[in-house]
C-alpha cells in the first residue's frame, strides 16, 4: 500500500511540520497575517496543522491604516469564521504624526507604519516567534534565508551569521529578548500558491479578481481610489476600469493591472501567460538589486 505524494501534498506537510514545531517549542508565538494570498494559504495550513484543535497562537495584522477597505472586512470575517484570536496593531505614534504615503512618501510610510509598527507589536506582546508568509522564490536575497530566521533583540537579521539548518531539525533556541521569524512557505513558489488555492478552494480577497474599480493613472501605474484620503492631482479623474491586483498592500502603493480575469482560474491562466513577475506591482521594491536585503537587515519582515 503506497501512495504518490504530489508536490503540493509534500509542501503542505512540510509547512505543517514547521508550524507544529513552533507551537511545541516557542513560548509565545504569533502568526503575522497580511490578508494576501500567501497569508491566506498560511492560515489555511495552520487550520490543518492543529485540527481538531484551533491554532494555539493568535493571528496579528499590522495595520498601516492605508489598506484597501475590503482587506479589513475580509480579515475580520475570515478570523471570525475560523474562530481565531485576532490582534490588530497600529503604530499610534505614526497616526498621531499623520504619517501616510501621500504626505510622507512610500519609504517613510512603510518604515513607520509597517517596519516600526511590527517591531513595536513584537516588543509589546513579547512574541518570541512570528510566522511570516515569505517565500524563497520571491526575491534573490530570500533564496538563502532559513526557515527559522533568527532576529537579534534589535530585530536585525544578519545574513552572514545564519544558523545552519539541516533536515527538518529546527533550532528554536534563543536568548531573552531575541525572536525568531519562521517562514513555513519558504519552499513554495508563486505558482504553487495559486495551484494550492485552486485545489483547496481557499478564499482570497476579491481584489485579486478583476472587476470595475475606480482608478487613476499615475507615474505609469494604475492606482485605485479606495477612499477620499487620496488627493487627486490636476487633471486626474477616477475612471472605472476592469482591474485586479497581483499583490495586496496599502492601496496608494499597490499598482493595479488591467485585466478581464474575473475568476480564479482566469487569474491563474493570465498569470501563466503573462511575463511580468508578481513583485513589480509593489512600489517599495523598485530599488537597487540589494534593496530587500538591506530592508531585512533593518527589520522589515
Amino acid at each position, binding site marked *: 500500500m503506497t501512495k504518490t505524494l504530489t508536490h503540493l501534498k*509534500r509542501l503542505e*506537510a512540510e509547512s505543517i511540520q514547521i508550524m507544529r514545531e513552533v507551537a*511545541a517549542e516557542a513560548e509565545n508565538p504569533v502568526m503575522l497575517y497580511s490578508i494576501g494570498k500567501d497569508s491566506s494559504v498560511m492560515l489555511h495550513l495552520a487550520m490543518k496543522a492543529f485540527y*481538531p484543535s484551533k491554532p494555539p497562537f493568535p493571528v496579528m495584522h499590522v495595520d498601516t491604516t492605508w489598506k484597501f477597505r475590503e482587506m479589513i472586512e475580509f480579515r475580520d470575517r475570515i478570523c471570525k469564521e475560523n474562530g481565531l484570536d485576532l490582534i490588530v496593531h497600529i503604530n499610534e505614534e505614526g497616526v498621531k504624526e499623520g504619517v501616510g504615503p501621500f504626505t510622507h512618501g512610500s519609504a517613510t510610510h512603510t518604515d513607520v507604519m509597517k517596519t516600526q509598527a511590527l517591531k513595536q507589536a513584537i516588543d509589546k506582546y513579547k512574541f518570541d516567534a512570528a510566522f511570516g508568509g515569505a517565500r524563497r522564490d520571491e526575491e534573490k536575497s530570500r533564496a538563502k534565508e532559513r526557515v527559522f530566521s533568527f532576529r537579534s533583540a534589535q530585530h536585525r537579521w544578519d545574513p552572514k551569521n545564519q544558523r545552519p539548518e539541516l533536515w527538518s531539525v529546527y533550532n528554536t533556541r534563543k*536568548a531573552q529578548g531575541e525572536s525568531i521569524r519562521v517562514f513555513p512557505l519558504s519552499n513554495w513558489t508563486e505558482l504553487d500558491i495559486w495551484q494550492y488555492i485552486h485545489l483547496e478552494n481557499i478564499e482570497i480577497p476579491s481584489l485579486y479578481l478583476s472587476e470595475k474599480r475606480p482608478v487613476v493613472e499615475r507615474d505609469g501605474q494604475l492606482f485605485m481610489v479606495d477612499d477620499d484620503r487620496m488627493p487627486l492631482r490636476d487633471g486626474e479623474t477616477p475612471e472605472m476600469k476592469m482591474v485586479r491586483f497581483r499583490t495586496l498592500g496599502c492601496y496608494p502603493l499597490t499598482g493595479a493591472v488591467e485585466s478581464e480575469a474575473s475568476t480564479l482560474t482566469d487569474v491563474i491562466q493570465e498569470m501563466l501567460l503573462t511575463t511580468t*513577475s508578481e513583485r513589480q506591482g509593489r512600489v517599495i521594491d523598485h530599488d537597487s538589486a*540589494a534593496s530587500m536585503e538591506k530592508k531585512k537587515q533593518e527589520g522589515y519582515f
Partner: protein
Amino acid sequence: MAHQDDLIATDIDAYLKAQEEKSMLRFITCGSVDDGKSTLIGRLLYDSKMIFEDQLNALESDSKKMGTQGEEIDFALLVDGLAAEREQGITIDVAYRFFSTDKRKFIVADTPGHEQYTRNMATGASTADVAILLIDARKGVLTQTRRHSFIASLLGIKHVVLAVNKMDLVDYDQKVLTDIELEYREFAKNFGFKQIVSIPVSALKGDNILNHSENTPWYNGPCLLEYLETVEVDDDRQTADFRMPVQWVNRPNLDFRGFSGSIASGTVRVGDSVKALPSAKESKIKSIVTYDGELDYAVAGEAVTLTLEDEIDISRGDVIAGKDNPPEVADQFEAKIIWMSDEAMLPGRPYLFKTSNKMMPGVVTDLKNKVNVNTLEETAAKKLELNEIGRCNINLDSQIAFDPYDTNREMGSFIIIDRMTNNTVGVGMIDFALRRASNIHWQAMDVDKEARAEQKHQKPAVLWFTGLSGSGKSTVANIVEKRLFARGRHTYVLDGDNVRHGLNKDLGFTDADRVENIRRVGEVSKLMVDAGLMVMTSFISPFKTERRMVREMMGEGEFIEVFVDTPIEVCAERDPKGLYKKAKAGEIKNFTGFDSPYEEPERADIHVKTAEFAAEKCADQIIEYLEENGYLNANGNGQR
C-alpha cells in the same frame, strides 16, 4: 513560463488538474569554483522558462554591469543572491532555487565549492535525494570531487549524477567522458551510492541539459532534465518500518487526545498495533485524523494526527512505531559529527542535542578520530574544528528512540546546540547504540543520599571555588574546612594537589584537558555529595560552560559557586607557586590570564575579594552564607 502552453490557453482546468498531480524532487549541485554550478542552475531556470520578463531584463542589465560572460547573459547572476557575495563573485551560502516541468517540481540546493564550506554542502545535502557533481571536462576528477562525494555519501544521498561540464571546450570528445567516468566509479565504489549516471554537458551552451545535443551523437543516455524528471527516489521510504516522531499532543477538549507528527518512514493503517517509545507501551491505531477527513492509511512524508485505542502516556519527543519492528532505544551512541562552529568541539563539554522532536542535554564523551575529507584518512584528534568531521561517542541525558542514519535519515539525525550562544554548532548522524546503555541498570538503593546525609546531620553540597591561580582559593577553602570540621561536619577538599597527581595525572593544560579535568572533579564531587559530604573544590575552572555542567550534575541547592575575585596583578605579585614568573618568561603555555582565558562567573552564589579582605574574613562570609541558607542547621538535613 511555458508548460504545455497550448493547454494553458485552451483548457486551464485540465492544465491545473495535471499540474496538481506533479511529484517533487530535491537535489543538490556541487562542484568547485568555476565548475559552472550557478551557470547550470541559471540555465535550468532559464530553459524551463521560470524567468519572468522583468527578471530577464534585470539579468541582462546585471550581466553587462558585473557579468563575466562579456555581452552574453551570465546565468550565474540569476542564482547568486546576497549583495556581499555578488561583489566577491562567489557563492557563500546555501541558496534554494525552484523550477518545475510538467512532471515534477524541483528544489535545488546550490552550495558553494569552497574548501572551507563543508557545512554548507552538508546543509544542502541533508534534504536532497540526488546530487549533481559538476566536473570540469578539462580537469577531470579532483580532490574537491572526492570531498563532495564523501559528504554526499555521509549525508545519505544514494543517487549521483556526474555532470561532466564544459564539453564544448574539449571538442565534445567521448573519450574524455569515459575516462572521467571510469576513474570516478573506481574511487566512489565504497560510498554506498545506489546509482551513478554520467552525462556530458555544457551548462553555458545548453548541451544535454534539456535536450539531447547534436554535438554528442555518441551519447545515448538521458539528458540532465530527463534524468531528474524520472529518477525514482522515495519508494523505499514508504515500505520501510513505520515511525512517527510525536511533535505535538493534540488536546482540543477532554474527549480527544491525538498525537500529531509527520510520518518519518513506512505506512500506518487504522487497526495497526503500535508501540510508543521509549516507554514501550502498546496500543492500536484508532483513527488517522486530518483536517480533510479521516484516513484509512497514511505514508511517509504525510503530516497527520493519530489517536489510539488505549489511554497510554505519550508526549512530545516520543516515537510511535509498529509493534513488531520498533526502533532501538538508547542514550549512548556512536555517531559521525560535522562541526559547524568557529569554536572547536571539546569532548566532555556539555551541549544541547536536538533530534527531529526532542531536545536534551548531552556530551560527546569520546572523540575517536577525525576524517580528512580530501584523503578520507582517519586520524586521532582531541577536538573538532570548524568543518571537520569526526567519529564520536555521545551520551545523552535521556533515552531516545532512533534508527541508524544510513537506514533512516529522520530517525538518525540530530543537531548540536551551544548552551551559551544558542547557535547550531554541529550536526550528527547516528551509527549505532553503545551496548553499555542498555546494560547499566541503576539500582534503587535503600541507603540513599538522604539517608547518608541524615546520618551525618548535614546537608551535603559542594562549595565550588573558582578564580585565577594565586587568587587564594585553596587558602580560603582550607579555612572553611577547618571551621566546618570544628562544628562536627563531614568534609573534604579537592584541589590541584590531591587530584592532579593521581586521578588526573594523565591530563595537561590544553582547553580539552581542562574540560576533562573539571568533568572528573565534578563527577567525584557528585559522588562525595551523594555520600553525604560537604565538599570544597579549589580549581581555576576558567570556563563558564564547565562550571554550569557541574552545577547541572548536582541536585538543586547542592552546588554553591564561590568566585574568588582577585585582580590578576595581585595574583601575579603573590605568585605562591612561581607560575606567573614562568608564564611571563614564556616557559609555560596555556596559563590562565595570560594565553588562556578566564571567564568570570556572572552570578556566583558567593563573591569574595581576597585583595580587599583577609582570608579569615572571606571564610566568615562563606560560613555566613551557609548558615543563612540552611546548610548548617542543628539537625542538618531537610531544611531546603
